[in-house]
């Protein structure tokens, strides 16, 4: 069939299209036009899609800064020679790299260049009429022909015309756009349906552009902040209260809603002994009280999968651990340090590592590296370990250092690491002095009569009545574009469903009068033509014929003519509803 206006417009190298047109002539305009046609061709789209798939793979093989920054640091340690080379190729930032961006930007350029003309063309097609009935319907693959007796009394031609009227009515009711096409001695209706298929395809491709814009541009309005909160403490939603803040391009961080969040209690449950998963932690809940700028306070709980909504932000629970309260007094008994210091969990049984930094009050600065074992046990090697993540036998060990903490010159230092380069170790290791070992409520002397250190028992002060406080690490996230991403993604899915499953087809019903020995007969021809993939076309033609013959209600005098492949097995053909 030749292409008509109502056919969707396709790039020139589409499989259904005519053979390739001309090579470029020499003029610059022609050349540009030719180049543009290459960019918007099916082949380019295909190659770019395949390139995109291949280019995405390295990001799963090499750690990415965005998803796994520690992995990148580790990579530099493990492969000091290779890492800088990979970094030069942006392999630690694959998805923001110039080459990855080039591929998807070209792909979307091609997409837009391809979709705009198609959308224009389709808009016109929506207003056009179905094409005329072909002269020889029997040439079509899906074709059947039946003859019925004309009733006596009335003009057979009028009956043939009525038959086509009826067919047109039925087709219109079945969702076809119909056009009468009568000529002398033959009456026919030309019907077409499935414009939605092309609409769906266009919606799908345009929605992909929507997703890209929502992610790329809308993401600029997002921000992510992180913060560790110890039970009983409060933080405020301001830049200074966060340990890390990642703003989008259009966020400067000065307009955050100044709400406050207090962690009242951190809850967790552990699988007990005798189960298949001893020590597995679950049911995490950060029980919080929030105070909004207008003073209104609310109690809530942040759980995994259940972030808390607050002033347009979402609060997520990322992690948790113990924060032993450590008090350091000098030789006079004056408190020089009191902190519930978060210790970072090192294993599933919550063996945790933390650091104490006492900057003032002593002749030299003091630092301590501590291990906390919620359920302390001794390995055969003599080393301590934790055998359960809950507080069954909590023990804190401390190694004391004396010297320069390296914080006076203003360089920011992590609160989780101690730089012992300028310090002397006083306990543990090779010093010959035992490490300090404390249980909640116990106090020990610091070496050289410096003073004392106490591991406070907090059971009287916190809601859980546990001796050791816990901390939660929270993430505050705001992404006003996420909902748009979702909207476009769902549109793409709906477009896809329509584009792939709405059949696009033409159907013709034609009537002609034929004289026979027994009086006039009306020959009824039914034919269908698929536009694109349409496995149910034959069933549809059969159904059109069946319904029409039943409603027309004239005696059928079919004799199967040789060559009518269509009607031989029509009674066995599946007839799914084609409306």
């Amino acid at each position, binding site marked *: 069939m030749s292409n008509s206006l109502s056919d969707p417009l396709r790039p020139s190298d589409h499989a259904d299209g005519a053979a390739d047109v001309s090579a470029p002539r020499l003029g610059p305009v022609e050349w540009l036009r030719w180049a543009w046609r290459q960019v918007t061709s099916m082949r380019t*789209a*295909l190659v770019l899609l395949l390139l995109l798939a291949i280019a995405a793979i390295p990001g799963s093989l090499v750690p990415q800064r965005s998803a796994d920054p520690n992995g990148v640091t580790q990579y530099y340690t493990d492969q000091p020679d290779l890492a800088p080379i990979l970094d030069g190729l942006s392999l630690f930032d694959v998805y923001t790299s110039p080459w990855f961006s080039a591929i998807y930007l070209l792909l979307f350029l091609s997409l837009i260049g391809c979709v705009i003309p198609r959308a224009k063309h389709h808009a016109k097609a929506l207003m056009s009429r179905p094409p005329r009935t072909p002269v020889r319907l029997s040439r079509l693959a899906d074709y059947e022909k039946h003859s019925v007796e004309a009733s006596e009394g009335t003009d057979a031609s009028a009956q043939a015309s009525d038959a086509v009227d009826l067919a047109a009515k039925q087709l219109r009711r079945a969702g076809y756009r119909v056009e009468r096409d009568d000529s002398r001695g033959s009456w026919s209706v030309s019907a077409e349906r499935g414009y939605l298929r092309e609409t769906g395809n266009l919606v799908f491709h345009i929605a992909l552009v929507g997703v890209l814009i929502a992610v790329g541009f809308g993401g600029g309005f997002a921000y992510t902040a992180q913060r560790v909160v110890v039970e009983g403490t409060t933080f405020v939603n301001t830049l200074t209260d966060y340990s890390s803040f990642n703003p989008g391009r259009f966020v400067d961080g000065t307009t955050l809603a100044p709400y406050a969040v207090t962690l009242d209690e951190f809850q967790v449950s552990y699988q007990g002994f005798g189960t298949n998963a001893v020590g*597995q932690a679950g049911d995490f809940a950060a029980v919080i009280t929030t105070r909004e700028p207008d003073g209104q306070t609310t109690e809530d709980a942040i*759980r995994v999968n259940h972030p808390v909504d607050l002033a347009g932000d979402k609060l997520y629970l990322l992690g948790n651990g113990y924060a032993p309260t450590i008090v350091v007094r000098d030789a006079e008994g004056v408190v020089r340090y009191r902190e519930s210091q978060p210790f970072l969990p090192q294993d599933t049984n919550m063996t945790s590592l933390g650091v104490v930094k006492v900057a003032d009050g002593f002749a030299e600065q003091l630092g301590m590296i501590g291990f906390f074992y919620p359920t302390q046990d001794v390995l055969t090697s003599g080393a301590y370990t934790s055998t359960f993540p809950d507080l069954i036998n909590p023990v804190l060990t401390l190694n004391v250092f004396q010297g320069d903490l390296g914080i006076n010159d203003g360089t920011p230092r992590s609160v989780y690491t101690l730089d012992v380069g300028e310090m002397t170790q006083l306990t543990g290791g090779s010093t010959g002095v035992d490490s300090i070992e404390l249980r909640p409520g116990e106090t020990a002397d610091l070496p050289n009569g410096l003073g004392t250190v106490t591991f406070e028992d907090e059971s009287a002060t916190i809601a859980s009545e546990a001796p050791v406080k816990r901390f939660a690490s929270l993430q505050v996230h705001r992404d006003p574009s*996420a909902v748009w991403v979702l909207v476009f993604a769902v549109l793409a899915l709906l477009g896809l469903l329509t584009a792939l499953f709405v059949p696009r087809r033409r159907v013709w019903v034609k009537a002609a009068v034929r004289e026979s020995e027994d009086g006039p007969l009306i020959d009824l021809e039914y034919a269908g033509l698929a536009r694109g993939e349409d496995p149910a076309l034959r069933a549809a033609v059969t159904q059109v014929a069946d319904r029409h013959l039943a409603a027309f209600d004239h005696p059928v005098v079919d004799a199967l003519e040789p060559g009518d492949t269509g009607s031989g*097995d029509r009674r066995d053909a599946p007839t799914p509803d084609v409306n």
Partner: protein
Amino acid sequence: MPAEETLSLDAVSVLLIWTAIAIYALAFIAYALDLARRSAMAVDAKGVPEYATQRELVGVGTRLGSGAPARGTGSVDTAQPAATPRRPRQMWARVGTALTVLAFLFHLGATITRGIAAERVPWSNMYEFSMTGTLLIVAVYLVVLFRYDLRFLGTFITGLIVILLAGVLLGGLYTEVVPLMDPLKSVWLVIHVFVASLGTAFFALAFALSVVQLMQARRERRAVEASESSEAKPSPRFLRTLPTADTLESLAYRFAIVGFIFWTFTLIAGSIWAQDAWGRYWGFDTKEVWTFVIWVLYAGYIHARATRGWRGTRSAWLAIIGFAAVMFNFTIVNMFFKGLHAYSGLS
């Protein structure tokens, strides 16, 4: 929750799954015998011109055939010779299907008892995804049999299932029933993982059909060459009894697009879940990367079918590569790649 009772129910599940594996293996043998019979039959019918009689597959042909006419092929062609009265020749295919149904019932029983034992949906760790995923592959295959006679894929389906299930059990991937980790406690576990498995099942069928399509296309090419020169290279003979490469392709395409839609949904559902669980909808986590790569590969496949010069053999290769990526994502990425999706239940 009484621990002993849980254990015994799970033990029943393991017993059922081994029974299912054994019956699938028998089904594989039956289907293999069917292919052998088809080869023999193709030899018997050698005198008959290959495309002379095509009514045999009309039941299939009427449905398969109309897929392509718009492209002007209009063929209902299958290479199947006429043999309507000789029913017994399909005996082994029928035995294969009957055994597959039986094995499926045991497999279903195993999956359900595992779910009851665990008191949740049985697709929460790698052992369970394998069980449910393979169950869905068989289910889709059996349902599709009502419409299309695809029993020639029986060896592939049962073979794949036996390898995956036995591989999982013998490879030490069996995992005891443990409570869900917090991030998995979500309705999205039920939806996202299930739909992904369903998509995989359709991709598996598209893959198998594409492989047969490639073989058939090669045979057809050689048949043409042979008619031009006297030298004929042999192709597996059972291919003569199967639909034409064109028909196989349009069928493979149909399964691939259903799979693609499920996969698109998986991608969206996964992002919604990630937004709740990890605080961002997309972060190029390894598993996310692979899910995306697979999606793009199948988008490529669908495009290839509409691109001049790519329809046929080239696009079939894309369907094959796509499924290879699905399997890679399921096995290697789950077990060896580092990422947030650390839910294989393996340590």
